[in-house]
């Protein structure tokens, strides 16, 4: 939803996260998604400066069932409840749902969250294939292998080297090193990236996102209510989705059509252009997702994204910083949710040494089977 009337009428007013690095260091077989969600929800409500009793909408994500977390948080009498499956691609969809709910008065203050216990439960993505196209019979396992397969095609069409691709994880790692709670704090140069083992060649270990535990929660309300709360409101300028369901997962055009469609939905009604975007907080499940989104949204010319990301352009201090808290490659695999939390910090001007100067607009995308995108901005711009 991205029409002019809706743009900027809703806002993210509270964010809450667990300490990803601490959870990563100390795995716990008894850790539950409900307790992580409770921690994040409490932090988000406190951040918004609200009373828990004011929350009347709940969107759950990543848990086996929506009810247990309601008991643990006392959010037992809310007016609006939706449960999303624990899939990363659902982040923009959940935000879209929360925004439309408060905009239309289905609830006044919606809490939404994603909570995952991957590392403590030994979850391995790809131990089984998706099973949609006889994958495992041929040994095709893991989303990473599917993105890797698409990258061989991309290289055949446009060229580009693995070393060039490494600029993406290297820049994002440099941001994690400035982020309290980010998991990957070790310095990583391009040689370190290239020295790491292949997982599904040509993708290497550091092209892959982390697998960890944690939760992130937001509070969403109308912009009008937001202006009375603790922090400067971060407006939801728009959200967009464009499914790309393929049995083989990846898009044969590197998500170009999905990106163009979402960009048109988000940018055109507002007259926003790529030049307006101050930072990207995007779904870096794999380094190549960043590359293809840069081309699809028109930041980089088609087929030239690998050259485009070189020489610090996407690092803090560069022309277009990407994933300024370390994204999913280096901060935390909270599936798009930590990216939106960082966008809120940047747009509030609360990102500390990571602060992007004069940060007015932040864009999110997720290129998966169910691409989604969102555009957030500071108050006063819409």
């Amino acid at each position, binding site marked *: 939803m991205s029409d002019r009337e809706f743009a900027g009428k809703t806002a993210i007013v509270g964010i809450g996260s667990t300490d990803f690095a601490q959870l990563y260091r100390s795995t716990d077989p008894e850790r539950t998604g409900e307790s992580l969600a409770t921690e994040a929800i409490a932090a988000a409500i406190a951040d918004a400066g609200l009373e828990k009793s004011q929350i009347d909408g709940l969107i759950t994500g990543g848990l086996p069932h929506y009810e247990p977390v309601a008991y643990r948080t006392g959010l037992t009498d809310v007016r609006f409840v939706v449960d999303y499956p624990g899939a990363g691609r659902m982040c923009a969809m959940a935000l879209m749902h929360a925004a439309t709910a408060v905009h239309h008065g289905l609830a006044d203050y919606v809490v939404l969250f994603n909570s995952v216990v991957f590392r403590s439960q030994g979850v391995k993505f790809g131990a089984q294939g998706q099973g949609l196209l006889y994958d495992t019979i*041929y040994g095709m396992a*893991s989303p990473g292998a599917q993105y890797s397969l698409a990258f061989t095609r991309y290289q055949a069409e446009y060229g580009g080297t693995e070393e060039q691709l490494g600029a993406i994880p290297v820049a994002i790692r440099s941001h994690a090193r400035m982020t309290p709670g980010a998991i990957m704090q070790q310095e990583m140069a391009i040689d370190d990236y290239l020295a790491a083992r*292949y*997982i599904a060649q040509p993708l290497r270990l550091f092209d892959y996102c982390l697998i960890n535990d944690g939760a992130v929660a937001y509070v969403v309300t109308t912009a009008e209510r937001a202006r009375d709360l603790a922090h400067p409101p971060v407006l939801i300028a728009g959200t967009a989705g464009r499914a790309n369901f393929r049995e083989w997962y990846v898009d044969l055009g590197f998500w170009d059509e999905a990106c163009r469609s979402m960009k048109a939905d988000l940018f055109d009604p507002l007259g926003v252009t790529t030049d307006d975007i101050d930072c990207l907080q995007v779904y870096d499940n794999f380094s190549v997702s960043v590359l293809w989104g840069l081309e699809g949204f028109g930041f980089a010319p088609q087929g030239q994204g690998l050259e485009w990301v070189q020489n610090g352009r996407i690092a803090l201090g560069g022309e277009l910083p990407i994933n300024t808290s370390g994204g999913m490659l280096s901060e935390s695999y909270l599936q798009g949710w930590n990216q939106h939390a960082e966008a809120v910090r940047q747009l509030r001007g609360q990102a500390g040494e990571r602060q992007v100067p004069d940060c007015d607009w932040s864009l999110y995308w997720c290129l998966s089977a169910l691409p989604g995108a969102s555009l957030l901005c500071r108050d006063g711009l819409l």
Partner: protein
Amino acid sequence: MSGEAGYAKPLPTVTHEDREFWAAARQHRFVLPECRACGHVWFPPYASCPACLSFDRGWTEASGRGTVWGFTIMRQPYIPSFEPELPYNVVLVELEEGPMVYSNLVSIDNDDIACGLAVEAVFEDVTDKITLIKFRPS
């Protein structure tokens, strides 16, 4: 490993939707579902036509020819039974008839695999019931 009784890798769970596909493969024939209502050809073999939603499904003989759209070389043992073959290739083949299929390329070194490579189907009897369709350079 053709015909080995101890085939350890994953096998298809044959269902009402794809029984005829696997039965044909067993006879070393590559068939694709074809809609009797609108002529659409699709894969995998859903019981109904994704184009017009008709359940009037027939079968057409595929040429077995296609090109490699993309490939990856698996380096990590996600599936334990594939571990002895690491590194092995997985390819996404664009069939002449349109559908995309995952498979493995045989009779080629992994280093020689390239996107756009022309390939043809070969049949590998992996158990006494299941025959897998793989590809080789044509």
